[in-house]
C-alpha cells in the first residue's frame, strides 16, 4: 500500500541554534521506521524517470523496492553496482536537480526522498565487514593503470577498474585521498570518517593509494607510462581559486574559500588538538552563491563569528548552491545580501581588513548561462564593516599537469580536452571530473570516472589483441 503523503517524510536534524556552533552532522538521517515510510512513497513506475536523471544510473526504484521488502543488503548491492560512493552521494548530490526532479510524485507534492534513502542504506553498510560480505574483490588481470587525483572522479574510475580486475594505483597530492570531499565539504555536511570508510572499501577491492604524490612534480605522466602503467586517468579536479582582482585583496583577513575550508576540514583547524591556525573572525563576508560559499559561511559561524554575510551579485533564485544548503544556512543565521557586488576591501592602519564596499545590482537580460545578468546600480555603494573576507567565486583546473605533459591540450579555461570516450589528446591518457568540466558536482565527476573506466577497459582489451 503506497504512502500517498504529498510531503517527504521529514528527516531528523540538529536544532539550527545548536548546530550553528558545532561541527557535528546537521542531518541525522532516517531511522528504519522513517525509511520504510518514505520508501512506501515510491510508486515503482515502469518508465523510471528518476534513473535517467542520475548521472551514474543508479537503479532507483529497484533499490527502493528492496527497502520496502526490508532486504537492505539487496538494496546496497543494487546501489553499489553503479555507485561506489553511496554514503557520499546520499548527502551531497543536488538531487532536486537530478533524480528527484524527474520523480512523478513531484508533479503533485514533493519527490520521493531518494537521496535520504540512499544515505540510509549506505550508512547501514558503513561497517567494513558488512561491506566486504556483499562486495567481493576480483582476481587480477595483471594490467596496471595509474589514476592521478583521489577525488570522486579518480576514486570511481579506480573502483570500476578494480572491479574488472585491473591493478590500480592512485597518486594523490595531499596526505589523504578524497579530494574536495576531504578538504572542501565540511564535516557537518559530510563526516570525514564516512569518506575514509568509502576509501577503505575501495582498498579492499585492491586499489593502491599513494599519498603525497604531486604528479607533474615527483613524476610526470610520461614517467608513469614508462613505469609500466598502460593507461592513465587524470582526475585532478579544479582546485585553483579565483580572486576578484579588486583593491584590498592582499590585506590580512582576505582568503580563498579553499584556504579557509582546507585549514578547517583537511587540517582540522576547528579542533583544539590540531596545530593548524584558522582566522578568528567576528564579522565575515563570504563572496559567492555556490555550495562553496555556503560551506564557508556556515563554517565561519561554527568558528565563532557573530555575523556572517553571503554577498552574491544575482538574486537568490540564481544561486547555484543546493537548495538544502541555502535553507540550512538561513536557518543557522547566515545573512544573505543578494544583488550586491564587492568593489573594494578596506583595511586599517595595520593592513588588516576593516570593511568591504559593496555596490547594489539589478537583474538585466539573460546572459550566456541563461541566467539574468546583474547590472550595477550607480551611486549605490555602501560600506559593510567586516574583519574577514572569504572569496568563493569559483575555481579553475590546476595547470601543473598540463604544463608538464607534452601533447595534453586544454581549452581557454584550462580544462583538459577529451573525446567522447574521455581520452585526452594524448594516447592512453584519459581525464574526467572537474579537470575536464571545470568546477561541477560530485556525481558528475563520478559519472566521468565511470565512463573513463569503461573506455580504458576497451582500450586495454583492444591493445591486447
Amino acid at each position, binding site marked *: 500500500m503506497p504512502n500517498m503523503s504529498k510531503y517527504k517524510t521529514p528527516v531528523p536534524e540538529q536544532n539550527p541554534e545548536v548546530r550553528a556552533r558545532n561541527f557535528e552532522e546537521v542531518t541525522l538521517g532516517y531511522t528504519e521506521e522513517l525509511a520504510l515510510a518514505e520508501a512506501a512513497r515510491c510508486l515503482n513506475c515502469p518508465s523510471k524517470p528518476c534513473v535517467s536523471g542520475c548521472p551514474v544510473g543508479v537503479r532507483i526504484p529497484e533499490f527502493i523496492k528492496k527497502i520496502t521488502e526490508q532486504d537492505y543488503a539487496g538494496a546496497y548491492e543494487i546501489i553499489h553496482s553503479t555507485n561506489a560512493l553511496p554514503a557520499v552521494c546520499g548527502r551531497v548530490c543536488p538531487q532536486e536537480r537530478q533524480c528527484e526532479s524527474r520523480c512523478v510524485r513531484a508533479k503533485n507534492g514533493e519527490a520521493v526522498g531518494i537521496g535520504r534513502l540512499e544515505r540510509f542504506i549506505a550508512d547501514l553498510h558503513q561497517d567494513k565487514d558488512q561491506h566486504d560480505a556483499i562486495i567481493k574483490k576480483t582476481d587480477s588481470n595483471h594490467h596496471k593503470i595509474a589514476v592521478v587525483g583521489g577525488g570522486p572522479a579518480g576514486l570511481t574510475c579506480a573502483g570500476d577498474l578494480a572491479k574488472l580486475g585491473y591493478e590500480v594505483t592512485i597518486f594523490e597530492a595531499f596526505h589523504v585521498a578524497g579530494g574536495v570531499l576531504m578538504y572542501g565539504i565540511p564535516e557537518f555536511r559530510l563526516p570525514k570518517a564516512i569518506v575514509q570508510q568509502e576509501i577503505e572499501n575501495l582498498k579492499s577491492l585492491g586499489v593502491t593509494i599513494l599519498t603525497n604524490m604531486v604528479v607533474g612534480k*615527483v613524476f610526470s605522466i610520461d614517467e608513469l607510462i614508462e613505469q609500466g602503467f598502460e593507461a592513465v586517468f587524470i582526475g585532478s579536479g579544479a582546485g585553483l581559486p579565483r580572486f576578484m582582482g579588486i583593491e584590498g585583496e*592582499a590585506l590580512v*583577513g582576505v582568503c*580563498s574559500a*579553499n584556504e579557509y575550508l*582546507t585549514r578547517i576540514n583537511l587540517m582540522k583547524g576547528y579542533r583544539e*588538538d590540531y596545530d593548524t591556525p584558522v*582566522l578568528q573572525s567576528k564579522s565575515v563576508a563570504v563572496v559567492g552563491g555556490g555550495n562553496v560559499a555556503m560551506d564557508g559561511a556556515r563554517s565561519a559561524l561554527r568558528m565563532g563569528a557573530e555575523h556572517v554575510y553571503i554577498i552574491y551579485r544575482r538574486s537568490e533564485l540564481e544561486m547555484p548552491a543546493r537548495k538544502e544548503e541555502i535553507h540550512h544556512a538561513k536557518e543557522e543565521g547566515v545573512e544573505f545580501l543578494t544583488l550586491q557586488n564587492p568593489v573594494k576591501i578596506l583595511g586599517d592602519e595595520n*593592513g588588516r581588513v576593516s570593511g568591504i564596499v559593496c555596490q547594489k545590482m539589478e537583474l538585466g537580460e539573460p546572459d550566456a548561462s541563461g541566467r539574468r545578468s546583474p547590472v550595477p546600480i550607480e551611486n549605490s555603494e555602501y560600506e559593510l564593516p567586516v574583519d574577514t573576507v572569504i572569496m568563493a567565486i569559483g575555481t579553475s583546473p590546476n595547470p601543473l599537469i598540463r604544463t608538464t605533459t607534452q601533447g595534453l591540450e586544454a581549452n581557454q579555461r584550462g580544462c583538459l580536452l577529451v573525446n567522447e570516450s574521455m581520452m585526452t589528446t594524448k594516447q592512453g591518457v584519459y581525464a574526467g571530473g572537474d579537470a575536464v568540466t571545470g568546477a561541477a558536482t560530485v556525481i558528475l565527476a563520478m559519472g566521468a570516472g565511470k565512463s573513463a573506466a569503461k573506455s580504458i577497459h576497451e582500450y586495454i582489451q583492444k591493445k591486447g589483441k
Partner: protein
Amino acid sequence: MFQIVKKRILNPSVTWMEVTAPHIARKVRAGQFIIFRVDEHGERVPLTVADSNPDAGTITLIFQIVGCSTMKLNALQEGDSILDLVGPLGLPTELPEAAKKICVIGGGVGCAIAYPQAKMFHKAGLDVDVIAGFRSKEIVILEEEFKQNCSELILCTDNGSYGRKGFVTNALQDRIDAGISYDTVIAIGPILMMKSVCELTKKYQIPTIVSLDPIMVDGTGMCGGCRVTVGGKIRYACVEGPDFDGHQVDFDELIRRNGVFREREKECRMMQLADNKS
C-alpha cells in the same frame, strides 16, 4: 613515512636532518622545497631541500626551530619518521642569464636555502662570492660547505664576534665600493634583510633575486595563501616561486601577511614547550 637517517645540531636553534625520500631525492633541484607534516595533528610546513643524495635516496633539511611545527620536528631523533613529506615543490632556481660573477647573500637560517643555490652556480662554473650573515659567532652555520662552493666567502656577524662586524648589506657595500661588479645578487634570509639588500642593489641597478617564504598550506596552487605581490601582480610563491625579482616584491605586505596567525602560533608554541618538557 619518511625516516630520519641522520640528525645534527648545527647551533642551539638550527638543526640539520637527512631524511629518506627516494622519489624526491631523484627529482629535486636547487631552489625547490618540500612540505612536511610531523604527525596527524601537525600543520603542513615548507622547508627548502638543502641537499640531496639520489643514490642513497635521501634529502637534507636544515631548519630553524621557531614555532610549534619545527619544535615537533626537532623532537624527532635518528630512526624516527616524519608522517608526511611531499615534493619537490616550487620552481627550480634558474641560472641568471649571461651572468658571470654573482653574489649569494644568506642571512641566518636563510643560509640553508642559499647554500644549494651557491653550490649549483659554482658547479655551473660561475664566479660566486658568498656573504653569510649571523647575529653572533655561536650561531654560524655551513661555513665549510660554503667555502667549498664559492670563490670567496665573507662572513659577518652583527656584533663582530666573528668575521666582519656588521650586516650583510655593509659587506655588500664594501664589495661594491672596492669596485667589484656583480651581474646578479641572490639574497635569502629574513624579509627585512632581503628588503635592505634590494634597496641597496636597486641603487646600483644590480638585478637581484630573492627567495620568499610566505605561509603555505598545500604548496600546489590550490589555496592562494602563499600569494605575494610582485610588480603589482598577485603571484603564488609555491608554484611560481619561491624565487622572484627582488626589486619588484612588496616586502611590507609579505611581513604583514606572515603575521596573520601570530597569536595562535604563540599559543601553539607554548603548548609544545610544555609538551616537550613533560
